[in-house]
Structures are given as structure tokens and as C-alpha cells.
């Protein structure tokens, strides 16, 4: 019995080797910003989608909103996809020229071009033929054929998009993000279609996390470390 009590005592001492530490941890999270436009217009049009500040934060940190308490290292725009589906028989348009702008909140007078004009888009048969300028289809989303739109991405728009996302995640700017779709349709024709713009964005951030460190070595007992001071 004495031996067992001694073992219990030694074990208790060893268990003191748990230390509570605050460490800086860097994480990278990739998310897709999906913008859906339902268009039913005669002639030229402009329509926009607003993603508010809360939705931006929820998108990148859906469980605990911890991104807002983190130091954002950087945001990357990895890719952009665009796709459309013409709604028959309501649609009578035979051609449309599309472009997109990005802006902070509803500041529609301060747009930055995000997607350059796609002049060769033409409507024929069941859908819009993006193939001429954007290459082969890369996938589908809700019956919309998606194309890689990197070739029409505007670098200034990509930078503006990153700035708006960072500002909103840091709560410097709470106005959200708007993307405006611009279309030019031949006179007298009605364009009826659903259009999707998918932007793949990656956020890298560093934050403090609490971890327990175990050590039973008397030479290297765990220390209480706070890297976040």
C-alpha cells in the first residue's frame, strides 16, 4: 500500500507539468463569395448586390467570429468564375456586353472596375456563350455553366475588393461590399437571365489561442508563455 501511495504522489507531481500558454497561431481560410443576379431588363441595365458587414464577417468566421479579434495578415483573390443561364421564352436579347464594378457599401459613385467588358458575349440557343472569350466551361452551379473569368479580372478591382474586405473584417468600414453588374443590350430587346459571379478569396490571420503544454521533464518544466502581450 505504501508503494502505491508513493506512486500516486509521484504521479501527482508529474501532473503539475501542465502549463497554460497563450500562443500566436496563423491560419488561412478560403471562402467563396457568391453573387447571384436575376436580370429581367429591356435595354441597358445596372444592378448591384450588397454583402453587408455582418455577412462578410460570418463568411470568413462562421462559428465564433474570431477573425474580428485577429490580426489580418493578408487577403488573396485566388480566382473568379462567371456563369449565366438564359430564361426562355421570356428572353428576346441576342447579345449582351457585361462588366462589373466593385465598391464599398452603397457608394455607387465610387466604382472600381472589377471585371472588364466582355464584348464578344452573344446569346444563342439555350444560354450565353462565354466560351469565345473565357474558354471552356469549368463547372456548373445551380444549372448555370461556369467559366474561368481570370482573363477579364481587373487588377485594380481585385485590389479594391481586398481593401474593402480587410476594412470590413477589421470593422474600420461597416458599410459592406457591393458589386455592380453593368449590361449593354441591343435596343428593344429584353434580357432575362440568372448570372452568377463567384470570387474565391483567402484570408490569412494571426490570433492568440490558449493551449496546454505537458512536460514531465524536471529539466524543462513547462513555462507560462504569453506571446500575445
Amino acid at each position: 500500500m505504501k508503494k502505491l501511495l508513493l506512486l500516486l504522489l509521484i504521479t501527482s507531481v508529474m501532473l503539475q507539468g501542465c502549463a497554460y500558454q497563450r500562443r500566436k497561431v496563423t491560419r488561412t481560410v478560403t471562402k467563396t463569395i457568391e453573387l447571384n443576379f436575376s436580370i429581367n431588363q429591356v435595354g441597358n441595365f445596372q444592378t448591384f448586390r450588397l454583402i453587408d458587414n455582418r455577412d462578410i464577417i460570418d463568411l470568413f468566421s462562421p462559428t465564433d467570429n474570431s477573425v474580428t479579434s485577429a490580426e489580418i495578415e493578408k487577403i488573396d483573390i485566388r480566382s473568379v468564375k462567371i456563369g449565366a443561364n438564359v430564361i426562355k421564352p421570356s428572353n428576346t436579347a441576342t447579345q449582351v456586353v457585361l462588366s462589373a464594378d466593385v465598391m464599398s457599401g452603397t457608394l455607387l459613385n465610387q466604382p472600381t472596375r472589377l471585371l472588364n467588358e466582355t464584348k464578344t458575349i452573344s446569346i444563342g440557343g439555350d444560354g450565353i456563350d462565354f466560351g469565345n472569350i473565357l474558354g471552356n466551361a469549368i463547372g456548373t452551379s445551380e444549372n448555370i455553366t461556369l467559366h474561368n473569368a481570370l482573363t477579364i479580372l481587373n487588377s485594380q478591382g481585385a485590389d479594391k475588393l481586398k481593401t474593402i474586405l480587410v476594412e470590413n473584417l477589421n470593422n474600420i468600414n461597416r458599410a459592406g461590399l457591393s458589386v455592380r453588374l453593368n449590361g449593354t443590350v441591343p435596343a428593344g430587346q429584353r434580357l432575362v437571365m440568372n448570372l452568377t459571379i463567384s470570387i474565391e478569396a483567402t484570408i490569412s490571420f494571426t490570433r492568440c489561442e490558449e493551449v496546454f503544454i505537458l512536460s514531465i521533464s524536471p529539466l524543462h518544466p513547462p513555462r507560462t508563455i504569453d506571446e500575445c502581450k
Partner: protein
Amino acid sequence: MKRLPIALFFVLGYGLCFSVAAQKVDEIISSYTGANATGYLQPLADILTSTFNTGHIHKTSIDSGFHLYLGITAFNTTVFDDKSRYFTGVTEGLFSPTQQVRVPTILGPREIVTVNGLNGTSYSFPAGIGNASLTLAVPQITLGTLFGTEFNARFIAYDFGGDFGKLQFMGGGLRHDIGRYFLKKSRFKLSAEYCYQQLKAGAYGNLATHKAGIYAGHQWKIFNYYGYIGYQNGSMNIRYEGSKDASAVHVSLTNQNPLLISAGMGLKLWVFRLNLHGSFIRPVVLAASLGLNF
């Protein structure tokens, strides 16, 4: 029966030490969802396989009569080599142009590597956790002897609850005194060992390891030492939710360090046995065990 509370104390006590570290598992391993996931997570299979395959014995010889050893083995695994800290990542998806670059593994440094692409696009590879050292402990029981063979078992379990679920580690093995057939009166001892171990980490994955090898060394009354050479295999399956909108990601890994070379030494201190053991093929694992030997 009197030993049962002590065993529970080991299990519960060390379980508490692991608890907080497990909370962030999904966020850490879900940094990658594509082909790069294998390279990013591969060091986990190598390190956990080597770690759990270390420190199974507490003395070089196998006692001829009945004996029982009850102890705890603590491991410290340190990553020194760049092969465990970096891998060649490839940009994925629609990012253009495709680029290859040296990036951190999960055990690599806390540095983000970014490459630039077309029209203002960029691609960042996730940082490692920056922790090149792993320390943990498991209780072990060794029982013998039956026809020159002793048996060992390791077990630890803790239910974290929530999304993680239950962490369970168990293993067993046997060691046979092959020196008894031709080294009867020598202090030089030779034994062969086989061990199987399994780790189940909640819903996130599991690891199964096998090892087989030979111990050779000298045994005196108080002091002993030995060397070990063996083969090890570890199969790890990891499952995680890459995105709440996508199906779960499965990654299957096999350890890339099958050769196990190690050495150890031990001391008898009254009824206690203290043993130090080190494995020196990537990664370096140091194990210390302390236990009662009846």
C-alpha cells in the same frame, strides 16, 4: 482492485492536459482541402508512428518468473529536419499560372508563403503551427512470463464531447526472449518484439501502427542498456469538413520512415524502474518511463 483508482488517475489526469489542444483540430487540419493536404499532413503520420513506437520496454532482459510492471511512459518528439517542416506545394483550382513552391507543413514554421498570379490574383499557402515538439504520456502495463514471452498493453481514453468526441489510444504487444535458446548464462540479452497500436481521434481520424524488431544489450542487477532495430508501419486516415457547403475531405497517409533505430538504458531504483529511450531516425523521439516493477 486497489490499483484501479491509480490507473484511472493516470487516464483522467493526462486527459485533462490534452483537452484544450484538441479544440482547434478542425481549423488546423482543414487549412488544405485539395492535393496539397497530403503533403501538409504527412509529418503527422511520421511523427505519431515513431512516437507511439518508442519506449515499450523498461529493461533489457525478460524476467523468467511471473512479473508485473505498471508505469507511465512520456514521449517528447522533436522535429529538426526540413523534410518534416516543408513540402512542395502546388497552386490549385483556377489560379493561373500554376506554380510550385516550398511551403510549411502542419509542423512547419508560422510563415505564410504567397505567390502572385494573373491580374492581381495571389495564392497563399497556409502556415504551420510553428510547434516543432510534441509531448505526451501513456500508461503501460507489462505482464509475464509465459514461455519466455512478456506482454504489454497501453490504453488511454478521454471523451472531449462536442464535435471532437472521444480520444482513444490502445495498443498491445509481445516480446520474446530469443537469447534463452543460446545465451543462457550471459548478461547479453536478445529479444524480438511485435507491437500493434491504434489511436482514434474522435470523428477526425485514426492511426494504426505495427512494429517488429530486435532488442540487444546487457542487463545487470541495477543498470541495463540496449539497442533496437526494427520496421514500423503507420496508416493514418484523416477526415474533416473542408467547408460547411462541401462533402467531407478524406486523407489517407502512410508513414515514410519505416526504419526504426533506437537505443535505451534503464535503472532499478528500489521497486521502481526508470528507463530512457531514444529513436534517432526522423523524427527524434525521446521517451522516459517510470513504473513499479513487481
